[in-house]
């Protein structure tokens, strides 16, 4: 009984983590999907000096829709693991990009996280992305925890 309450608390926490991370990604995608917003996002991507300028429109078009799809997949328990994988991969890439451009190259640039008017790329951006990554992972493992314990026979 106590174990059931504990496992349902973990599941509630898993859902909350999923909702929080998905909510942020949906908000971030919204700022990059409109007509002028996609073009502005392409400019933010070019400022990182990672992708050659000729090709910056490609991630500017695709990435926001990947964020929407991954966020929705994260909310739905059946597709949560797939959504978390996509979100996790994107967050790792974003953290690496900020570390390279803002710290290694020393560029003072907007992170482009939420489209126009985004905060400056730096430690806060990395910290926020690490928190989101932890939330995405937690949403999967806390949700799967009761099933794992039953499988092990605990």
């Amino acid at each position, binding site marked *: 009984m106590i174990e059931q309450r504990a496992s349902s608390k973990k599941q509630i926490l898993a859902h909350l983590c999923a909702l929080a991370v998905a909510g942020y990604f949906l908000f971030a995608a919204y700022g990059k999907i409109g007509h002028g917003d996609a*073009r502005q996002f392409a400019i933010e991507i070019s400022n990182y000096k990672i992708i050659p300028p000729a*090709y910056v*429109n490609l991630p500017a078009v695709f990435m926001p829709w990947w964020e929407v799809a991954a966020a929705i997949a994260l909310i739905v328990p059946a597709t949560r693991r797939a*959504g978390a994988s996509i979100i996790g991969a994107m967050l790792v890439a974003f953290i690496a990009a900020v570390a390279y451009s803002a710290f290694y190259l020393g560029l003072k640039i907007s992170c482009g996280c939420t489209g126009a008017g985004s905060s400056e790329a730096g430690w806060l951006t990395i910290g926020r992305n690490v928190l989101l990554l932890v939330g995405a992972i937690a949403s999967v493992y806390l949700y799967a925890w009761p099933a794992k314990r039953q499988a092990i026979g605990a």
Partner: protein
Amino acid sequence: MRTHLLMVAAILAASSTVALIANTTWYDMEWIRREIGNTGKQPEPTTPPNGDNPIVEPPDPTEPEEGYILVDGVLENLAAESAFFVDAREQDDYDEGHLRGAIFVPADDIYEHVPNSLMATGALVTDLIIVYCGSPTCDASHNVADALRRDFSFENVLIYKNGWEEIEASDRFEDYIVEGDES
């Protein structure tokens, strides 16, 4: 594991399809960006007819590169009021001081400000637009200029590369600097 990977692939494929449709029907962005004129390229070296080594003329420091304008040109246009000036810095920097008449178009929110600020003042695509930002090393003016040429079809956009750093350091701009909302 296989099911998981298939699900990831399916999600990416579906969202990529939506992105393709969105760009085809709505954004209409080039998939691969072409180079736009006024890129500030150096002229190609000319090969003499006898096959000797190509002659490369050293750049004339008094003549601006293509797509750029120097301080004398900026002052001429300020005095004659013959150009629209665009300030590509951040709001705080603009409020502290900007060129008289300069329109605020921050590089991190171009597509909101160009139609609502620059074009609202009556700037036509054939008008001379001079864009500046903080210093020779900042990219903001280049980003705004590129957007004006590429996405708003402005034909005559020049970048004042040395920007606010030179404006502040020079005493030639005293009559042309204003603060806050003053224009």
